[in-house]
């Protein structure tokens, strides 16, 4: 039962073939059996999940009209507040904090009767590409437990790949949904900036952060997308427009006549050969499905990474200032006679990990008077140039595509002492965040040289998220008929369990 798609589970719930309690219990059992190996979860809400599942079942028995995903379980990235449930953002500084309020995403999940199983592991404050920066230990890739599951949302993607949950929520600031999806052989979507409310999303970089759906199929992602998207008066940057019809697009998958732009700059040197092989093969399949493949250029993408590492740290240096031990979370050094200042200092010294401190220092420096124009100011200009690159390219095509990441999953510990090498992992995903447009990663197969999943990225213009679902669904269908079974059925690591 746990190997079904969320849409199939929902259909079984409707038909009465199973109940939400059975389905939830099956996932809780799976978590109990494999999560000691995977470590996707930071907190499992056994009691709360089963209670909610029972309520949904009761509503169904009573004949209430239910939402499409009602009764289906989900894993929530630990960066989203959920009332009364421990929320750490992967940091020691929030250890033990239980939010007194629901994020808008959680409120919508509850309104859709989606059952929240628990909170998933992540790089501390979503800063990282491997989940190794979690203060609570790394998550392991279900394809190979010695490898990283991507980051920052490695917990959510690993939970999907390990069949611990059929759906998950991620957040994507520079690729934190798409890169984990790519390296775990799952689907991850970063909607257009502002499509999903950020209220209750613990901020890393406010102008880049965007929550989105994680799933094992394009249709499942679309169903979850429609459940969580929509205008929120609590988020000033939330889009006040109807949600694009992504479910209809995912069901259609018709790409006849669509122009697919291959980004010249996001391919070639620096990309693993097996990644390129699978990418080329996917392009052929899309062409066979009736799409036209064109080449587009985005000359300013080469500055995206550098600009990103000024903007994101700058914003985070300010966003993380609130963690000062005065009102919630960790408090260190509160002894007789200690000043507020020394308590703040000690708490931040002990509570934040190395990568977080590195970025706070970078950002503080970049915003300093005398350096602002050279760093933050220039980075904002690059951001404008990247947006212009996208706009120009979208005049020639309907969506743009690239490999999601230059490589497949690397080994845990392999890059943890080389931040630049780690940052380069996000080179293809970052431009999407800089421009605020939509991006999806879906599995394109396994790299022949290491047998690990490769991600295919689709980028669609702002507020045209349905386009990436059309293309994603077409490619998924073509690949499925080629493979004969979902890619995840080939994952070897947890085969015995």
């Amino acid at each position, binding site marked *: 039962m746990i190997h079904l798609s969320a849409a199939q589970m929902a259909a079984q719930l409707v038909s009465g073939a199973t109940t939400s309690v059975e389905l939830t219990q099956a996932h809780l059992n799976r978590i109990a059996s494999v999560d000691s190996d995977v470590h996707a979860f930071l907190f499992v809400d056994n009691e709360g999940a089963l209670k909610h599942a029972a309520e949904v079942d009761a509503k169904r028995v009573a004949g209430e009209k239910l939402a499409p995903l009602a009764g289906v379980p989900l894993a929530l990235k630990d960066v989203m507040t959920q009332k009364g449930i421990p929320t750490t953002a992967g940091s020691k500084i929030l250890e033990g904090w239980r939010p007194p309020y629901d994020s808008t995403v959680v409120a919508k999940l509850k309104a859709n009767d989606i059952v929240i199983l628990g909170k998933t592991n992540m790089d501390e404050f979503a800063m990282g590409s491997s989940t190794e920066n979690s203060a609570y230990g790394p998550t392991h890739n279900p394809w190979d437990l010695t490898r990283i599951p991507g980051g920052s949302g490695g917990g959510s993607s690993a939970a999907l790949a390990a069949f611990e949950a059929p759906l998950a929520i991620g957040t994507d600031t520079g690729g934190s949904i798409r890169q984990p999806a790519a390296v775990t052989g799952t689907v991850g979507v970063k909607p257009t900036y502002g499509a999903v409310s950020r209220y*209750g999303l613990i901020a890393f970089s406010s102008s880049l952060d965007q929550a989105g759906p994680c799933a094992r199929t394009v249709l499942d992602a679309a169903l979850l997308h429609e459940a969580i998207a929509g205008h929120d008066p609590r988020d000033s940057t939330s889009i006040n427009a109807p949600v694009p019809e992504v479910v209809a697009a995912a069901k259609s998958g018709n790409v006849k006549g669509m122009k697919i732009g291959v980004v010249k700059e996001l391919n070639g040197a620096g990309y693993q050969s097996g990644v390129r092989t699978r990418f080329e093969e996917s392009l052929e399949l899309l062409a066979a499905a009736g799409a036209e493949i064109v080449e587009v250029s985005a000359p300013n993408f080469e500055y995206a990474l550098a600009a990103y590492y000024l903007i994101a740290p700058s914003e985070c240096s300010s966003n993380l200032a609130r963690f000062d031990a005065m009102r919630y979370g960790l408090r260190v050094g509160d002894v007789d006679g200690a000043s507020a200042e020394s308590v703040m200092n000690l708490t931040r010294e002990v509570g934040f990990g190395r990568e977080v401190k590195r970025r706070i220092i970078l950002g503080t420096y970049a915003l300093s008077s005398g350096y602002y124009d050279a760093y933050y100011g220039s980075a904002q200009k690059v951001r404008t140039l990247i947006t212009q690159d996208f706009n120009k390219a979208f005049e020639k095509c309907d969506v743009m595509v690239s490999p999601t990441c230059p490589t497949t999953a690397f080994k845990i510990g392999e890059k943890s002492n080389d931040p630049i090498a780690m940052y380069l992992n996000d080179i293809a995903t970052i431009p999407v965040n800089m421009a605020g447009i939509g991006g999806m990663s879906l599995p394109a197969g396994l790299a022949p040289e290491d047998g690990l999943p490769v991600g295919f990225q689709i980028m669609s213009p702002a507020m045209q998220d349905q386009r990436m679902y059309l293309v994603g669904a077409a490619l998924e269908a073509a690949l499925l008929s080629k493979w004969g079974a979902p890619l995840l059925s080939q994952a070897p690591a947890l085969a015995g369990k």
Partner: protein
Amino acid sequence: MALSYDDVIAKYEPVLGLEVHVELNTKSKMFCGCSTIFGAEPNTQTCPVCLALPGALPTVNEKAIESTIKIGLALNCSIAPFSRFARKNYFYPDMPKNFQISQYDEPICVNGYVDVEIETDEGPKSFRIEIERVHMEEDTGKSLHVGGATGRIHGAEYSLLDYNRAGIPLVEIVTKIVPGTGKYAPEVAKAYVAELRDVLRSLGVSDVKMEQGSLRCDANVSLRLIGAETLGTRSETKNVNSLRSVERAIRGEMIRHAELLNKGERVVQETRHFQEDTGLTRSGRSKEQAEDYRYFPEPDLVPVAPDAAWIETFRAGLPERPSIHRKRLQEAWAVPDKEMAAMINADVLNIVEATVYLGADPTKARSWWLGEISRIANEKNVAIADLDITANDVAEIVALVNAGELTDKLARQVVEGVIAGEGKPADVISKRGIKVVNDDGALMAAIEKVCAEQPETAEKIRNGHLPAAGALIGAVMKETKGQADAARVRELLLGHLGQI
């Protein structure tokens, strides 16, 4: 050896810069829905947003933007078609986010002015104060430092934090430098703050109570030798909590600066705190090393781009400028300057105007509000506005006196009754049984009774000693429980005793 003020201005020219913070009177905070009511239990008016809980986001209070635009228009500013919020980053326990959402290089209102008139040796003179910017920001919480002698953070045993004030909308009004006021600098500054207060009150956007902190003034002062071009080093004086303090603080700083300069010392650029009791300032934190606030555009808020037509609706609805309005009233009522000033100082101009509007004679309306009602307010130690009596009540009472249905003395009882919460004037009159005795027969009976009781006095009056009449009139008034018209009693008494 302290310098005299005359010595200072003989040698130096003061240059002013005034920053006024105004708490808006919106019902909810700047970036969340929490109440803004003053004086609630600590930390009861808070939510995830104003406590800066992880994940919470600000949203802009549209009413606050409206108020700020109105202020900008009233101060002759241009309203920016596009303005942005910015984060001002610094750590302080009473600031939950450890940054303040403010406006930096893109404020909502720029380039305005205010004209103020003061009395000079050459008669009334007008000074133009140029406004550089009017911008929006949020207030911080409050720290209460317990233990230690001074209530300051240093030496305190512990501190208590109240976040009720955190996020209250503030508007900051910043002048350009103000040169050319010479010896009148303190008066000009005071007149400017008073004018701002009146303008803001007429707009209805703030309580503008300096003593409660809803209007706060920071006064920047520097001196330069008369005729010099370059500006001297300035000090910034905070904690200036009344109009009088504005004047005193600036005068005091001018003398302090001049003393330093005369000794060949330099003025330190710093924040100073005004001491109400001594009229002096004491050093706060030094600004020699400018604090780096690392301003950057607030990414959680979209830019403010007010629609031009929307702005025009506010321009059309602006009230008359208070200074013009006052002049108009003074002429219409033919009030001498001194009395006008008394009304302004006592803060009763608006209510007198309302009373007149409701039909009362301006002189009577003024004397009620400035006289009896002010007296009761003083006695109770409350503001006139907080007394339980309205312009309507006073207008009604004046009308009753005019109609001869109340004497002045009875009217005072009615006022007292209304303020005591006994109801509207009619209720007080009926409950207390207040009534002018107009019945001559009843008065004559009382007069005859009093004359019989005090025959010697009556005899004196009969013999033409009129000053003695007062005692008998008093006795009659007492007999009629003060409800008689004293003039009529006098007439009847003198007639009875053969003196008319």
